[in-house]
């Protein structure tokens, strides 16, 4: 591995800051294996295209044409030999070999929106005794720089009631997402006009002074995490322009297209380019209990175009090899077609994709049976997917956080990365 001067300095800064970090991660950081690992992670980014509500694997990445469960759409060949996906994704079909691995054998067992989302956000089932961080928070911690002037974790979820805000769990609020639910621009990060910049700095200094007094002789993970969050306020305030797509050329905006999802993908690219380690773009709402095929005709067109342009753009900028683009939601959809020509919730055999960083383009892992009712080969769970994601990013999924005296591995106990989809 080649170490750049900048990368070394970033790593050094990270190390110095970490050494004095006051939150619960301190112990954990002392356990990290080597400087080389830290430096290796620099610059790795993740964009999660969260297919909220549950996209149909049969109308996306695991078609079953001609089967009773297959629906009306054809399967089309992709640029990867022998790999076919739905005809609703023609642009992605042309990019599979170059960019994308498909995992077709997820069995995540929970087909309830809330429960399924928790599993797919955290990579494990809920534990009443501990609040696990979600993937965004883990990546924010593992990939972010403590001295970063940009947010570590941005989550855009502008549609659908019951929006999933994400959680940093036991990692504390330092790694909580900047959550955009009402518009594509973050709200309440601009300095009030009634407060001068000088006043604002003075207020921060005062808060810092009071906080230091308050935390004297107090050792609390959450206090440390809150302090770090405040220390980053001015950086977050300066990031507002990253969310403004008007900063892009008209040509670039046209490439991403007019849909909100397309525009959010453009923002996601701007964010990772500026160093934001984790961006989640939730595209709602795939929950097609009625008219599944018409719904997927619309939503797949949006996904196909936006994801393809995003991958191309990242590649053109030299970012794709450092940026992992993921697609999944809380579950897939039933192979059976109901009377409203809909598909219902289904978690027993469904698909996810990984593109870019650390991923073997064109790989297609796992297999479902001929009608898609169950996994026929290579069954994996959410923990395995998380282990794969972290491995693709160069993060050891077996690494442990210490929560009190309890070691918690980054990916669930026993989870293993899917080596076939990794470089």
């Amino acid at each position, binding site marked *: 591995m080649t170490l750049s001067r900048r990368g070394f300095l970033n790593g050094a800064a990270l190390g110095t800051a970490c050494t004095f970090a006051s939150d619960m991660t301190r112990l954990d950081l002392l356990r990290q294996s080597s400087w080389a690992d830290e430096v290796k992670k620099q610059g790795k980014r993740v964009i999660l295209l969260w297919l909220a*509500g549950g996209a149909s694997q049969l109308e996306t990445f695991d078609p079953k*044409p*001609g089967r*009773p469960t297959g*629906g*009306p*759409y*054809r399967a089309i060949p992709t640029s990867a030999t022998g790999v076919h996906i739905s005809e609703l994704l023609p642009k992605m079909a042309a990019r599979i070999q170059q960019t994308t691995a498909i995992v077709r054998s997820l069995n995540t067992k929970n087909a309830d929106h809330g429960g399924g989302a928790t599993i797919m956000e955290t990579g494990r089932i809920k534990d009443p005794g501990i609040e696990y961080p979600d993937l965004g928070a883990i990546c924010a911690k593992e990939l972010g720089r403590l001295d970063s002037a940009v947010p570590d974790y941005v989550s855009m979820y*502008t*549609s*659908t*009631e019951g929006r999933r805000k994400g959680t940093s769990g036991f990692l504390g609020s330092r790694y909580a997402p900047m959550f955009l639910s009402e518009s594509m621009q973050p709200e309440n990060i601009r300095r009030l006009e009634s407060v001068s910049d000088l006043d604002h700095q003075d207020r921060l200094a005062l808060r810092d002074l009071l906080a230091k007094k308050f935390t004297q002789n107090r050792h609390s993970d959450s206090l440390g995490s809150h302090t770090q969050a405040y220390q980053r306020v001015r950086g977050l305030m300066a990031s507002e322009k990253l969310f403004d797509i008007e900063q892009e050329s008209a040509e670039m905006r046209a490439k991403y*297209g*007019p*849909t*909100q*999802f397309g525009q959010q993908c453009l923002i996601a690219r701007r964010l990772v380019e500026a160093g934001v380690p984790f961006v989640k773009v939730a*595209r*709602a*709402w795939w*929950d*097609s*209990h*009625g*008219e599944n095929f*018409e*719904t997927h*005709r*619309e*939503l797949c*067109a*949006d996904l196909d175009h936006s994801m393809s342009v995003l991958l191309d753009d990242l590649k053109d900028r030299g970012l794709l090899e450092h940026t992992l683009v993921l697609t999944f939601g809380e579950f897939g959809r039933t192979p059976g*077609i*109901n*009377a*409203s*020509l*809909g598909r219902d919730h289904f978690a027993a055999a469904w698909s996810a994709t990984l593109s870019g960083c650390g991923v073997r383009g064109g790989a297609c892992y796992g297999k479902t049976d001929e009608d898609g009712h169950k996994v026929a080969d290579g069954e994996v769970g959410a923990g395995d997917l998380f282990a794969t994601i972290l491995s693709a990013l160069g993060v050891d999924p077996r690494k442990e956080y210490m929560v009190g005296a309890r070691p918690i591995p980054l990916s669930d106990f026993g989870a293993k990365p899917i080596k076939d989809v990794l470089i």
Partner: protein
Amino acid sequence: MAADPVKLQKTKDIGIPSIAMCVARTPNSGRLIFGSSDFKLHEIDVFAENPQPTSFGGEGHQSYVTGVVLAGPNIAISGSYDGQLIWWDVEKREPTRKVKAHDLWIRRLGISPDSKVIASVADDMQCKLWNAETGEMLRQFSDHKPMTPHNFPSMLHAVAFSSNGKFIATGDKVGHVAIWEATSGSKVGTVEAPGLYTWDPRQRRHSIGGIRALAFSPDNNLLAVGGIGQIGNIDHLDAPARIEIFDWQKGERKHELNNDKFKALVEDLVFDPSGQWLLSSGGAGDGFVTFTNLETGKPIHQDKLPMHVHQLVLNETNDMLFAVGHHKIAICEFKADPSPAAPAEPAKS
């Protein structure tokens, strides 16, 4: 004489392994030819003691069969999501001609009253007319935008010939209907039914609905448009079945009916030949039929059917109804005691 809708009674339903998307009936018989989700055409004699569907053979369609018409005693023509039209020898149940008709999914076929011209509509937003005998394309036309106002692909679901064969109506996802002169392909009118298109800008950020059924009245003056009303939660077909009736030459909406009994999608519309009522049918979880008085615009009779109905046909004497849909075929007759049965519960999605 018009059949009395209140006498409607389901007399038989037959389970089938696939979803029947469309149907045509051999005249003066119980022989139905239906297109299906198994990519095939099937024939079934519903009057047989133990009716069993028989599949058509040969190299057929590669996707759902969404339209079928009979263009003579031995000619069936089918259209499919695969974009193909296939001509069939009905007796041999073998294909005789294939035409790559559309670039995208064929949603429905129509046939002129003299059975000489076929109309096909597809998601390439084109209506194409075909010589039913030779398979030659006669003309094509479109007044339907490929994208919705919200920048998603639109769909062209519905087509119908007028009773005199002079006009053709086409209806799309966003509720736009164009009426065409069949012989020239000139557009002679438009009507708008945006109430059949639901765009959810906030919670779901996609759409549902659209015009799914069209029918001209026997005097050709009225055009009925069917689909589903505005949906709150577009995950389900969770809104009243909706029809609108236009005096299309004046561009006036005469009636609009949001069905108060059935939350469902209208898939098919049939006018009573005597012009007294309009039959609408479709479904969500279950199926329904509603007869609407053309004078008042009010329902005369409504009833539940055992499956989501995708298409239906009446017999020549207008006293028997053959409906096909979700894994079932239902036969109804207008022969019950005039006192109607207890009202059916609304269909649930």
